[in-house]
Structures are given as C-alpha cells and as structure tokens.
C-alpha cells in the first residue's frame, strides 16, 4: 500500500504540469480572493456559480477550481476585516475583534502582515498534516463496506444537523428532506418512477446543479440586492511595507500560538459539519485564556489576529480530508465539492481514496499551493484593498444571476432546471432565515441515491441484521453519541 501511495503522490506532483489544472487553479485563486474582498457575497456563491460549468472541464480541471475557491477566500476576507471592520467571509469575523482596533491605532499594515502569513502558513501546514493522515485513513476506508456506508451517510447528516445549526430538530429535518428529495425519479433498484406525477422531466430526478444554485447562489444574491448598496463605506489609509514585515515577524515571535491555533483549526475541520466559522473563534478564545495579559485582547493586539487567522485556513486541511476519505463534508463549501464529485462522475465516499488516490492527493496539494499563491497576490493587493471592496451590489446582483441561471440551463439544456433553481431559491431563502440547514439538505440530496442503493445491497447480502458488524455498530454508537450531544446542548439552551 505504501508503494501505491508513493506512486499516487508522484502522479499528483506530475499533475501540476497539466496546463489545464494550472489555468483553472489561477482562475480559482482570482475568484476566491474576489469573494474574500467583496464582503457581501459570501464564500459559497462563486462555488455555486462555477458548478454548472464543470461539465466543460475534466476532473483534473474542475475539482481543483472548486478546492481553490474554497481555499483562498479567507485570505482576502481577513484584509477587509482588518481595514474596513467587515469580515469578507464568516470565518474572518474573529479577526476583526483585534484587527480593526489595530487598524484604528495606525497598525493596519502590521495586522495584515500577521494575518496573511499566519493564514497562509496555517493553510499549508494543515494540508501537510492531512497528507500525513492519508495512509492511516486508507487502512480504515478499506474496511468499509456498503453496510457501513449506510451509517456513514447517516453519521454525516447527524453531524451536520446536530452540531452545525442552532436548532437540532430543524437540522435533522433539513437532512432528511434532502434524502427525500433525492428519491424523486426512477428508483435505481427497481426501475419504478417515484413522485414524478407523470412529468417526463422528473423521471431522471431533480438535477444537482439547480439545487445548489437555488440553495446557495440566488438567496445570497437576493440578500445582497435587498441590502441595496455596497456594505463598504469607509476607507482606511495604510502605513508602509515596514509594518507589514513587522507583522510577519510577529508570527514567528508567537510561533507556539500559531502552531496551537493551526492545530485547533485542523481538528475543527476534521469534525464533519462544524464548518470553518467556529475554528477561529475557538482559537481566539484559547489564545486569550492562555495569555499572560488577556486584558489586551479586543484592544488591538497582534496575538488576537494571529490566533484566528492561523485557524481559519487550517480548517481546510481537516475538512478536505474527511470529505475525500469518507464523503462527509466538513463545511458547506465541502458539501458543494461533494456535489462537484458527482457531476464529474466520481462516487463520493471511501472509494475516492482507494480508486482515485492520485486525484485526492492532487486536490490536497492544490489546497497547499493555492494558499501560497493567494498569499503572495494579497501582499501585492494591500494598497488597493479599499477600492476593490467597493464593487456595488447593482453590478454583483445581475452578474451572479446571469452566470448562475445560464449555467443551470447549460447543465442539462432543460429550461425546467432554471425554473427548479428559482423554486429552490425560495427554499434557500426560507432555510437561510428560519434556522434550517442548507448544507444538511444538500448532503442528504447528494448522498440520498447512494444511501438507498447501499441500504438495499446490505439488506440483500446481510438480511435485516446487516448492521451486526463491529464497524457498523461503532458507527451506530457514533450517531447516537452525536444526537446525545445535541440533546445535551438543547437542555443547556445552547441550541433550540
């Protein structure tokens, strides 16, 4: 097996010579940074926008594009958090607690230097950690059969539903609704159509692209347009590059804080469903609690920037690993990546590591390399941040809609898909504003068909007691544990 991993690693490195991969990696860097620098858009919109166009690309071009967008968004977002007091993406929210006060004290460039270096290094090191974990995970995934996959899917939905959202019941309802929606169309096991109501269009089921565009891209565009104007109103002048270099030196001076925060981010990323927003806050809290002078936090101290920034990009390594190895996304972005696997004809789950190891390793390497490229670009962009962040909603709203809806049509050349996308945008808006979980619905939808197939294969092979295997029982115990944690949180009033 070790030899196989080395061969796959060699192939993964050779894949970087593919001009298509390099081109779409750079496009991804551009789009990802744009997301971070345009605070109102939200990290998922560009991923949902490019998804319909993936059929034009090979897996080696399309999947790195999605990974890159997901990987670099936080770096741009930290700059707007520090300079404009507006987090570019949700995980950057912890950075503004100390980043913006530093900016007000005239140390904005120092904060940006510290943020960019800790974010870049955090992302790269977390990917290296993920690469080290691959051989261990390969042993585990080779023991997983279709019986276990039934519970792996349920575990993923439980994690996303219970841990990610404030309302546990609404989260579980969302995941199960996703599973239910995936049942529309011909059933693979029997060939009998379900819930099609005689409509030919629904015989093939509801497409993945209209669901993702409807759930993620259009609701964010509507929210952006409803805000009316650009969210960026202020402009901050920056001091020279000396301060930026000072910020970078600060990261090395606080290397232990950096390493600890990076590890926190990585572990949070490994836990499916928690997402990227929590890691930076946990790191910030840990840094403050362990500091000799916690009173300085919140007033503009560089440790308060290094801690969340080291964690926000480190989440990527962990979440990418669980998405590739188990098919359980660690965050909403990874749920969309899972959708991209399906669109590229790949089966999400343990088979990704066993059958497409070179591609999996390529994606991990892409995450590391793009972090470095994005970090370098961000340094070049520092003097222009305020201007870039001021692109108004009146341009972004039509742009997002045109790209998303035209792409939805191109996906299967069905105008019905465009109508379904708009229909799902209503679902997305309701879910967004009433505490339901869009990632849980998406996960249920993506894995629903596979879930049913695994279930009937397992029933056929092992009968009604197909779950009486050690790994299956362990997974059932894990599901019960996750739900139990949710119930405990409910009792404590942390969730509803």
């Amino acid at each position: 097996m070790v030899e196989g991993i080395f061969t796959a690693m060699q192939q993964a490195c050779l894949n970087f010579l593919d001009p298509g991969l390099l081109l779409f990696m750079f496009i991804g860097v551009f789009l990802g940074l744009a997301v971070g620098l345009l605070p109102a858009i939200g990290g998922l919109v560009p991923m949902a926008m490019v998804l319909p166009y993936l059929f034009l690309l090979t897996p080696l071009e399309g999947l790195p594009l999605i990974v890159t967008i997901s990987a670099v968004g936080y770096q741009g977002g930290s700059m707007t958090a520090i300079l404009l007091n507006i987090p570019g993406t949700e995980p950057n929210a912890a950075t503004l607690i100390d980043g913006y006060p530093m900016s007000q004290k005239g140390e904005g460039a120092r904060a940006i230097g510290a943020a960019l270096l800790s974010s870049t290094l955090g992302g790269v090191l977390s990917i290296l950690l993920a690469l080290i974990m691959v051989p261990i995970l390969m042993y585990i995934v080779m023991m997983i059969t279709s019986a276990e996959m039934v519970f792996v899917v349920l575990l993923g939905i439980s994690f996303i539903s219970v841990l990610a959202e404030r309302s546990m019941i609404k989260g579980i309802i969302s995941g199960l609704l996703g599973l239910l929606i995936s049942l529309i169309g011909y059933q693979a096991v029997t060939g009998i159509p379900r819930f099609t109501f005689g409509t030919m269009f629904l015989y093939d089921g509801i497409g993945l692209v209209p669901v993702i565009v409807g759930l993620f891209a259009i609701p964010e565009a509507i929210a952006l347009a409803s805000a009316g104007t650009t969210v960026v109103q202020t402009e901050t002048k920056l001091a020279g590059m000396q301060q930026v270099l000072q910020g970078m030196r600060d990261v090395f001076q606080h290397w232990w804080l950096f390493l600890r925060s990076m590890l926190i981010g990585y572990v949070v990323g490994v836990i499916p469903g928690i997402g990227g927003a929590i890691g930076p806050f946990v790191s910030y809290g840990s840094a403050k609690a362990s500091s000799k002078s916690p009173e300085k936090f919140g007033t503009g101290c560089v440790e308060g920037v290094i801690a969340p920034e080291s964690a926000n990009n480190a989440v990527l390594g962990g979440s990418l690993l669980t998405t590739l190895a188990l098919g359980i996304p660690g965050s909403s972005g990874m749920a969309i990546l899972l959708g991209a696997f399906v669109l590229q004809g790949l089966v999400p789950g343990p088979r990704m590591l066993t059958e497409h190891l070179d591609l999996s390793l390529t994606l991990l390497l892409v995450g590391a390399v793009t972090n470095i490229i994005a970090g370098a670009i961000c340094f070049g962009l520092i003097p222009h941040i305020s201007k870039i962040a001021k692109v108004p909603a009146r341009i972004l709203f039509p742009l997002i809609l045109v790209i998303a809806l035209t792409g939805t049509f191109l996906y299967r050349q069905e105008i019905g898909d465009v109508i379904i996308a708009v229909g799902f945008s209503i679902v997305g808006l309701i879910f967004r504003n009433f505490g339901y979980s869009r990632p849980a619905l998406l996960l249920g939808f993506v894995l629903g068909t596979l879930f049913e197939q695994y279930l009937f294969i397992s029933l056929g092979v092992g009968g009604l007691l197909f779950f009486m295997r050690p790994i299956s029982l362990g997974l059932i115990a894990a599901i019960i544990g996750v739900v139990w944690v949710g119930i405990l949180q409910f009792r404590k009033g942390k969730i509803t």
Partner: protein
Amino acid sequence: MLIAITVIVLFIFFYSLQLSSWKTKLLPLILSGVILLLALTELRLELLGKKKVKADQASEVESTESTGNVKGYLTAGAWVLGFLLCIVFLGFFIAIPLFTIAYMRLQGTKWWLAVIFAICSLGLMYVLSEPLAGIELYRGILFGE
C-alpha cells in the same frame, strides 16, 4: 413553515403508501414518517413556548434582519422572477440584456455603463455556451422553434 412541511410530508407519506413495490415505498415511508414526527415535536415545542429564552435572544438578530429587509427581499425576489419569466418567454439572448440594463438603470447606473455591462454579460454567456460547449442557448417560448 413547520405547518407547511408537515402538510407536504403528510401528503408524501400517504402518496408513498400507494406505490406498488415495498422496495419503492420503504425509504419514502420511513423518511416522511420520521420528518413528520420531528416536525410535530418542533411544532409542539414552539406552541408550548418551551424554547429557551437564550435561544430566542440569539435568533433575534437574524429575525430582525429578516423582518427588517422583507421589502428588499420581495423586490429582489421580484427581479429574479421577472428574469426567469423573460428567459422562459423571450430566451437568454433577450432576457440577459433586458434584465441587466433594466436593473442597473433603476439602481442609478449610467446608461452607457449598463449597456456595456449587458453586452459583456451576454458575450461571456454566448462564448461559454455556443462556441465553447457547443450548446445552443434557449431561445424562449415566443422565439424558439
């Protein structure tokens, strides 16, 4: 919202009962049954007011945002719906510039900028679809074959 989910899932539950094979109806029945139970539980909790006060306070920010922006959401939603209707009836070639120019003009963008933006958007979509992907864009009910 919960009542709507309950009604829809109840319909799916009874509809699934009529499906022919047990293999076809097994999962829909289990899923809709569980969702029904959960929705009713959540509904009961909300009606009996057993929600924690803290949780209500936590969601206050979100609900204030949603109620405060209802008009904005409805307006933006109407634009999306209008764009969709344009696509369905007139096709992408007319809908894209029409929607882009109309929206940008009403938001105060200068004529020339709106027109250039519309041409660029249409050009990008055309290049991506017809020459690159070899897919003909939808021409609309009125202008299609």
